[in-house]
């Protein structure tokens, strides 16, 4: 029986997912919230990116269930001997991608290659020659790799594509069935409406994204059973696996850091805006002081200090994974504690505006206590700002992680992250011949994640704050004239 390990960030990821579910239930219950979120999903780019984000979130959650395998007790030892556990902390994702984890080569190999990237001395027909040796795992099932390779790859890719599309079509049919049921249409009607994009939500766009994802990941997984789809890195580890593992790091940093900013930002922002006077002065002084230190430097200083602390207390952590995880967790906390100034400023201004409104004045006149006013009347009316900021910061933080890792104050080097991959890729790109695949993998995964997050954030911003400055191109020129907004001042 393996021992389930709850790392700090695992607990946080689970709590966040739980919070999302609770929030989902609240949306379901409250007509106002439902209207706002429906508006988000009526925006086709937001719909498509939501699908992609959901897939990434799934990977992150699967990667957040950690355990340590039980070791076989030495023969002859009594039953009373305590069960020993492996030193490696694995996650469910490691089990799913077991072929990638176990299929370790010795050094670089190109994507889908059957032979190593560098020459090595091998004995051929009794003589020692410098050849490109066959890989231990990549394409090991082929007898004559030069002749069979192309056919095998094509066959697997096509098979994977077919399987992927089948899965995709199954999902589409399921959605069509649900649509038919909800609207009381026949099966054929539902298909017709879906194809012509006549549904309330832009389901056609979303389902196209699903199909595209299936079409991409089908062949990838089919090929991954026998090849290294994105090649291997310097120590022979599969790059595709690293990219998948990096998703969790990015998600944790993006979400946990923004959540960590919230308590301080919300509490202080509303307090400052509501009470004004000296409380406002003190809080303003606090955040001006904090934001006047250049952000990277502040984070670097904090992280270095944390590192010294971790180094001087090695006995606190049982395994390397735990240490790396604590570092990730603290990095997020640091990012949160240093990044609350912007949201705080925003909430302060909004609260100042709100507290002069009639309903707040009325509440004051009725003798409602200040705390109750802030909690019941002001907080619910600034939540949209909090949501918008949270979603916007998510992608910015993922990008920031890469820079921090480059500077040397990011996540633990033993932890997979996009920043770490880019950092290594920097040296690989200056090799001759170029090792480009780590870079390509990090690039494609990261752009997909950040782009989806950005598009989703745009949708959320437009839906929750329709008066705010809009960034997107509009087909209807009259839409612009209606908006007169002086919020920038």
């Amino acid at each position: 029986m393996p021992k389930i390990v709850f790392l700090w960030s695992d607990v946080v990821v689970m709590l966040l997912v739980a919070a999302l579910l609770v929030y989902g239930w609240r949306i379901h219950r409250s007509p106002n919230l439902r209207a706002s979120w429906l508006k988000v999903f009526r925006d086709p780019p937001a719909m498509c990116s939501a699908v992609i984000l959901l897939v990434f979130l799934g990977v992150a959650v699967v990667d957040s269930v950690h355990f340590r395998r039980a070791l076989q007790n030495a023969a002859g030892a009594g039953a009373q001997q305590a069960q020993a556990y492996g030193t490696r902390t694995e996650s469910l994702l490691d089990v799913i991608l077991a072929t990638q984890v176990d299929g370790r080569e010795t050094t670089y190999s190109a994507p889908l290659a059957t032979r190593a990237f560098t020459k090595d001395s091998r004995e051929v027909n009794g003589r020692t020659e410098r050849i490109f040796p066959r890989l231990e795992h990549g394409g090991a099932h082929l007898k004559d790799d030069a002749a069979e390779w192309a056919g095998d790859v094509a066959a697997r890719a096509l098979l994977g594509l077919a399987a992927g599309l089948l899965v995709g079509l199954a999902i589409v049919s399921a959605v069509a069935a649900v649509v038919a049921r909800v609207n009381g249409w026949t099966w054929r009607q539902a298909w017709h409406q879906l194809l012509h994009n006549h549904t309330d939500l832009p389901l056609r766009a979303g389902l196209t994204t699903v199909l595209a994802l299936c079409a991409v990941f089908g062949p990838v997984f089919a090929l991954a059973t026998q090849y290294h789809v994105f090649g291997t890195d310097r120590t022979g580890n599969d790059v595709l696996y690293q990219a998948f593992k990096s998703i969790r790091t990015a998600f944790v940093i993006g979400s946990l850091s923004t959540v960590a900013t919230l308590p301080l930002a919300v509490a202080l922002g509303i307090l400052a805006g509501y009470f004004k006077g000296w409380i406002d002065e003190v809080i303003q002084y606090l955040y001006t002081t904090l934001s006047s230190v250049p952000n990277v430097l502040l984070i670097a200083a904090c992280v270095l200090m944390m590192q010294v602390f971790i180094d001087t207390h090695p006995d606190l952590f049982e395994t390397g994974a735990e240490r790396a995880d604590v570092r990730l967790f603290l990095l997020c906390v640091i990012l949160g504690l240093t990044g609350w100034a912007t949201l705080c400023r925003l909430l302060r201004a909004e609260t100042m505006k709100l507290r002069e409104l009639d309903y707040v004045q009325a509440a004051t006149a009725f003798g409602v206590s200040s705390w109750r006013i802030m909690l019941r009347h002001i907080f619910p009316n600034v939540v949209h700002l909090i949501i918008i900021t949270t979603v916007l910061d998510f992608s910015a933080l993922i990008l920031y992680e890469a820079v921090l890792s480059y500077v040397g104050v990011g996540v633990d080097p033993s932890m997979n992250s996009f920043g770490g991959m880019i950092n290594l890729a920097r040296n690989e790109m200056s090799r001759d011949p170029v090792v480009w695949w780590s870079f390509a993998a990090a690039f494609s995964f990261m752009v997909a994640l950040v782009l989806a997050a950005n598009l989703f954030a745009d949708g959320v911003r437009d839906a929750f704050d329709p008066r705010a400055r809009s960034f997107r191109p509009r087909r209807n020129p009259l839409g612009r004239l209606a908006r007169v907004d002086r919020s920038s001042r």
Partner: protein
Amino acid sequence: MLNYVIRRGFYGFLILLGVNLFTFLLFFTVNTPDDMARLNIGGKRVTQEQIEKWKTERGYDKPLYVNDKASGVERITDTVFWDRSVSLLALKFGRSDARSATDIGHEIRTRMWVSLQLAVPLFLLQIIASVGFALLLVFFKNSRIDFWGVVACVLMLSISSLFYIIVGQFLFSRMFRLVPISGFAPGLDAVRFLILPVILSLLSRLGGEGRLYRAMFLEEIGRDYVRTARAKGLSEPRVLFRHVLPNALIPIITSAGSYLPYVFLGSLVFESFFGIPGLGAYVIDAISGQDFAILRSIVFIGSLLYIGTYILIDIAYTWVDPRVRLS
């Protein structure tokens, strides 16, 4: 006006004191000087004598906040906190913690000019390029160019600046061999080394800023005075350049100005990637060498610049918008 600047300056001084206290807390309380000594001397077995010697050499051997042994004012002045704060406020940075113990003030003074050579052209070109791109999109608003321009912006701002650097270095330095990969030379020669970082930095921020400025311009374009200008029969370029551009400058100044502190600090990542010996590279060296004396000094300079910048931005407001009165 002068009154205002003096008042802001005083407030800025208060903030500097806060920053000083905060950084001191961070650097000296989370880990004591003993920890730092152990880290800097290195090795497994560090004797207490070595630690004391290291601390005495660098003046860390006094109590941190309150000196119980001294009496009167000295209780507070004869401490590490007092020493460090006074010397920082007098812009005396002392020596670095590393074994070489270089003079931080000297390093900063020489590196500052290198950083400025990269940063000033970059700052100006950045505004020109972003505003120009945004104006182009606004000029063709509601057309295909506008649509795909915004799509390109979103795509560009989703790409980490590190990717721009790696691809740019690969293409222009390795494939086409147009510019050296990294390094720096003083004088006019510097242009060869600086051109690639400047272009790549421009590109990496063009997406975000272009989109932001476009939205700002569109906000202005919806106003009555623009309609009036069009009704008078002015040509579209004239409306854009003579009427919309000056009015949109106010939000643009805030947005571009908030980047000014980094102009002096140099772009950390770009300097270290291209081997330009400016302040940014200095910070990265200090971080990898865990040199807290350098970091503390640079944090202090950074906040000094930040405060100065915000006073400058306020003054710039009065210049672009005569309606703004500072009081």
